[in-house]
């Protein structure tokens, strides 16, 4: 019988909601919560030998520690497969499922599987690294999720060939896999064209590479008169990170006044970013957000002026959707404030 270790959060373990999200990882023998449905679907082919329960806040705030502890817990059982979730639309749970599943796969070299809603930030972060089954956006979709996850889990545990994403139900992972459709290509082309002509929904079989290109604006007419703003995804914030912008998967951005600030120093600013070595950014935050140089330019008349506020967030694993929403919001303010041009810095 194949052995499976299952990872779930405090909520699905029935420990509690947000108020219990701080609990560290603990291992329980056998099945807990949603494992029951998975176990039923496995029938006699696989057995969930242990369930690891961990609070979402604990995991995300103590990631290295949590990973290490959980990998040790998993190792003890020598499982044939590791399943995390499904996490549905719970963002931090999704990130935890993806992170721990990838870690288990990399460190212990056993197959792993998780499931979540396609817009869960964990999906974008990990879908190319591990198999993630696309689920509905709430726990009401548990039955459907289990129906897709259990057969794929067994295939993975047995080391069988994994078919194409549409057959197996995992999210497209950038790896093209052949399979036989029910109808021939020409028929599918006619059906697709009919749908396209009728403005109905259709799915291309080969999505073009991501063309998230932005047409450049016309050049600034006179840079010596222009009001320039600074915007960064490099996480530069006032010391202490007053708005608690997350070190990864940021859910917000900050707007900070730099009126009279000539230079960003170690004492006054820092980075909140958790995705790069922060040492050099913390010693001199101008390295990421060049306020010092722009002040010089301002003085020398090379630019008109530096805008009074800068906008900042952390680009580390932040969902594109979130990032777009941030920009849509603050670019209106920039326009209203009469900003002519923006310098975007990343890391």
């Amino acid at each position, binding site marked *: 019988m194949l052995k499976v270790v299952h990872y779930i959060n405090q909520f699905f373990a029935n420990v509690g909601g947000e108020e219990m999200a701080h609990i560290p990882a603990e291992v329980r023998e056998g099945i807990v919560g949603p494992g029951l449905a998975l176990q039923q679907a496995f029938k006699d082919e696989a057995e969930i030998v242990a369930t690891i329960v961990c609070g979402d806040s604990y995991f995300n705030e103590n990631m290295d520690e949590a990973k290490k502890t959980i990998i040790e817990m998993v190792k003890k059982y020598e499982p044939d497969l590791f399943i995390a979730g499904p996490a549905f639309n719970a963002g931090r749970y999704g990130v935890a499922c993806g992170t721990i599943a990838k870690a288990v796969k990399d460190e212990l070299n056993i197959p792993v599987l998780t499931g979540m809603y396609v817009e869960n930030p964990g999906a974008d972060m990990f879908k190319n690294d591990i198999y993630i089954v696309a689920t509905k956006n709430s726990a009401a979709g548990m039955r459907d999720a289990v129906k897709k996850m259990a057969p794929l889990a067994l295939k993975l545990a047995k080391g069988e060939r994994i078919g*194409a*994403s*549409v*057959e197996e139900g995992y999210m*497209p992972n*950038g*790896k*093209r*896999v*052949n*399979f*036989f*459709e*029910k*109808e*021939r*290509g*020409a*028929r*599918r*082309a*006619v059906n*697709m*064209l*009919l749908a*396209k*002509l*009728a403005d109905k929904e*259709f799915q*291309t*079989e*080969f*999505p*073009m*590479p991501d*063309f998230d290109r932005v047409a450049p604006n016309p050049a600034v007419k006179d840079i010596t008169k222009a009001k320039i703003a600074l915007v960064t995804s490099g996480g530069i914030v006032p010391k202490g990170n007053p708005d608690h912008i997350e070190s990864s998967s940021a859910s917000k951005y900050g707007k900070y006044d730099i009126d009279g600030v000539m230079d960003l120093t170690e004492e006054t600013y820092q980075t909140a970013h958790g995705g790069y070595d922060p040492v050099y950014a913390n010693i001199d935050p101008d390295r990421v957000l060049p306020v010092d140089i722009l002040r010089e330019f301002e003085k020398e008349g090379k630019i008109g002026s530096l805008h009074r506020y800068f906008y900042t967030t952390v680009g580390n694993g932040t969902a594109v959707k979130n990032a777009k929403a941030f920009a849509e919001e603050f670019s209106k303010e920039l326009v209203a404030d009469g900003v002519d041009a923006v310098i975007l810095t990343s890391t």
Partner: protein
Amino acid sequence: MKLELGYIFIKDIQFSDVSKVEDGTLYVNKEEVKALILEDQNFQKADVELAKPGESVRIMPVKDVIEPRVKVEGPGGIFPGMINKVETVGSGKTNVLKGAAVVTTGKIVGFQEGIIDMSGPGADYTPFSKLYNLVLVCEPVEGLKQHDHEKALRFAGYKVALYLGELARNLTPDEVEVFETPTLTEGLKMYPDLPRVAYVEMLQSQGLMHDTYVYGVDAKQILPTMIYPTEVMDGAIVSGNCVSACDKNTTYHHLNNPVIHELYAEHGKTLNFIGVIITNENVYLADKERSSNWSSKLAEFFGVDGVIVSEEGFGNPDTDLIMNCKKIESKGIKTVLITDEYAGRDGTSQSLADADPLADAVVSGGNANEVIELPPMDKIIGHVEVADVIAGGFDGSLHKDGSITAELQVITGATNEMGFNKLSAR
């Protein structure tokens, strides 16, 4: 233009003293076929073999596959401009030996390619494993130039296909299908509530072993033009293409063009099938621009709402495909493209050599780089040593037991870009 296709279903093929069709069996006089091939003095020796579905047989290297047909009524003959006189075909009656095919093989160049397995996993990927095949193995005379060899082999295939087709002239078809396309003015008035659709067919046209012929004309010399869909069923377009086995269109594909058949199947029900635009895939970039300008102009001139564009071959045709798509879409005509992919052995590479956001509706014929295992076969027709050098083969791909490890691209017709197959990729 109206054409009746009369299908005589072939359920077996055998050698016999007299060539004939009886009770669904195609009897072939081997010596007559050999003599027909050897009429061409470019060949010193010819052999003829049978390959039936389910047999432990591997055919390689395949050049072309041709369906036997005969013109029973109406002007012209099959393969006009090639074998028969340049007369406009596509009307009247044509009989078809459905289920039979002539397969030509031969080593024109050292890297000749194309496998048809009649059973086993390889058979699932090629439509020709389901046919009763007469396989021609022709040996050229010493020192025959590649150009001449290619042409001789091409014509041997047509001649034998017509010879077999002739056997169907006086037979009563088991089933008749009627295809009709009216004039443009009449066609546009028909079915006013249905969207008007045309088919843009891209023809490979890049030099020796990369060519397609339309009424005998090398397609690289044409400007894009219109053709009645039924003309194609009478062999107005033939293949001289011997590279990229998996995604070249054989003459069989042209005769049985799946896009044309599927559009006819919906004609008058969900769409109004106006006609076919043929265009080429030349190497010269200015030609690509001119041809795609022309195909989009024709689509506009036809007043259609949507088109299906099919591709042929690897690499540079991706550029033609995308140019056609962009220019047709920019005229407000919706497109669906049919292509195949070269996503690398692990499936993670960029699939096409060109791309555009307007290409938002694409049908995939599968990843031609995916590695497959072909078990040994009892009998090899053609040249077994070719396995190591055919496209996608690599050193050691031919194992001691006769099995082959290779990329899918070795299999004739496997990732066809007319959408002939069910294979796809995600």
